[in-house]
């Protein structure tokens, strides 16, 4: 019997080793779903069907010969088209990179290859990762599998859509201001941004080098852990056990982070907190005193970095960018050096404040997105009685942890009355990935 589109890497691995399914069969199922669903969702820029079949057959041969590479062996994975895969184009969702072919795998991709993953294809993204809705891409917008009139989030929107639509068992994204967690939240998946500099960004097209992260989107916290370990180059099975729920100390930074929330997002968040309390977790309030400065700090850094990277092509081929991304890159060229430096200095008080908030708690918990996935083609959404810019809303709750580098994972926590996913963001201490994910497992068990 063929696997359901919600099969986890864990479950696939059990069935693969029980000879109930082959890597080739799983890959064919993903390819079938791509053929059926991609015209509507536009999740993929490049479907690597022939390569995927070869990799899958090789994975099956190796397993039959007694070579087991670990939990990612034979697992079909999609890769955001910002990371190099040897011999294939890395478009970054842009015509600016027409003709590009990667000479070698990105380091993270090479680790996945070594772990036996099957590369099903390159996913669509917001052009050059410079956006949160996946609308502005040279290849057209990706769409949300829960409601194709809505954004899948961005910039790793194609990745999230491919995962949730059953076209891959996991996917790799990047996150500069929230671009793994935002689409994970919008599409109802798990999205993990590791500690800054944990996973190599070599071979990844940059947006803002001091804020860029590589990480997985997956169907469960356990799956995210498996892919994360493989991204580091550790393909071996390392089981992860949930921390005991009783006594786990959870801090909620309410001021700023819970000020502007859609009513149903707020309701799902509070219900999630109630579930955590019922399980014996201690839920207390905390604060980030400089939270109101986050958006201005982030904006000046990402604009300055992006403008510097794109300076040459903005002069030589501006018409190849999508118009909205081009304009925002042009905006970056007007950031003064003194303000860029101010913004960089502003990161340190934020870092100290997140550390201080974590000092009294095991993890911080807050919503991932303040709104459900927005409709495609809108610049603003109504939150309560107020019209708010979409971009500001999408980045509001995630960008802090790019500025500070703390690891953060988004997990699903219910739906709105119209079926749109809501998401909980869980944040841990620097380089304390295993405790964070063990806490996330405990939370997932209560609200998943």
């Amino acid at each position, binding site marked *: 019997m063929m696997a359901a589109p919600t099969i986890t890497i864990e479950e696939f691995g059990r069935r693969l080793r029980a000879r109930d399914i082959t890597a080739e069969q799983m890959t064919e199922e993903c390819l079938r779903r791509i053929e059926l669903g991609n015209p509507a969702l536009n999740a993929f820029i490049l479907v690597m069907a022939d390569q995927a079949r070869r990799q899958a057959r090789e994975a099956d041969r190796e397993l039959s010969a007694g070579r087991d590479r670990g939990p990612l062996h034979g697992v079909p994975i999609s890769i955001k088209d910002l990371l190099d895969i040897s011999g294939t184009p890395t478009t970054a969702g842009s015509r600016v990179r027409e003709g590009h072919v990667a000479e070698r795998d990105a380091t993270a991709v090479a680790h996945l290859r070594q772990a036996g993953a099957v590369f099903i294809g390159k996913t669509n993204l917001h052009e050059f990762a410079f956006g949160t809705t996946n609308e502005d891409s040279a290849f057209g917008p990706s769409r949300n599998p829960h409601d194709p009139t809505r954004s899948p989030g961005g910039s790793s929107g194609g990745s999230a859509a491919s995962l949730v639509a059953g076209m891959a068992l996991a996917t790799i994204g990047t996150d500069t201001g929230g671009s793994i967690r935002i689409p994970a939240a919008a599409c109802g998946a798990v999205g993990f941004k590791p500690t800054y500099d944990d996973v190599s960004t070599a071979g990844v097209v940059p947006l803002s080098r001091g804020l860029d992260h590589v990480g997985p989107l997956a169907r469960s916290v356990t799956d995210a852990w498996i892919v994360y370990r493989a991204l580091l180059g550790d393909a071996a099975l390392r089981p992860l056990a949930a921390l005991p729920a009783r006594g786990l100390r959870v801090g909620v930074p309410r001021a700023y982070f819970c000020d502007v929330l859609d009513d149903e997002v707020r309701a799902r968040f509070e219900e999630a907190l109630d579930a955590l309390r019922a399980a014996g977790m201690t839920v207390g309030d905390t604060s980030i005193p*400089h939270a*109101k*400065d986050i*958006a*201005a*700090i982030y*904006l*000046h850094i990402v*604009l300055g970095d992006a403008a510097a990277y794109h300076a040459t092509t903005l002069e030589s081929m501006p018409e190849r960018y999508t118009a909205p991304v081009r*304009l*925002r890159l*042009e*905006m970056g060229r*007007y*950031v*003064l050096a003194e*303000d860029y430096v*101010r*913004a960089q*200095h*502003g990161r*340190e*008080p934020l870092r*100290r404040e997140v550390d201080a908030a974590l000092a009294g708690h095991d993890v911080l918990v807050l919503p991932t997105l303040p709104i459900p996935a927005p409709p495609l083609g809108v610049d603003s959404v109504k939150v309560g009685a107020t019209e708010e810019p979409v971009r500001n809303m999408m980045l509001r709750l995630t960008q802090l942890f790019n500025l500070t580098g703390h690891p953060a994972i988004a997990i699903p926590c219910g739906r709105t009355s119209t079926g749109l996913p809501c998401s909980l963001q869980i944040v841990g201490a620097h380089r304390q990935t295993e405790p964070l994910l063990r806490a996330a497992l405990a939370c997932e068990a209560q609200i998943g």
Partner: protein
Amino acid sequence: MTIDDWLRAALADAERRGLPELKPILETLARATRALRAADFNADASDGHRMQP
């Protein structure tokens, strides 16, 4: 450079380059820059160092 001077120069430059659609975007950036400059973590050479050690 004050933000007002910066904004005037930036708007004029955008006009000169044939990018009038940059105007609302630059005004948004100006608001963000005002907020950034008003933050209490900024250094101030006149009274020593206002930033935390």
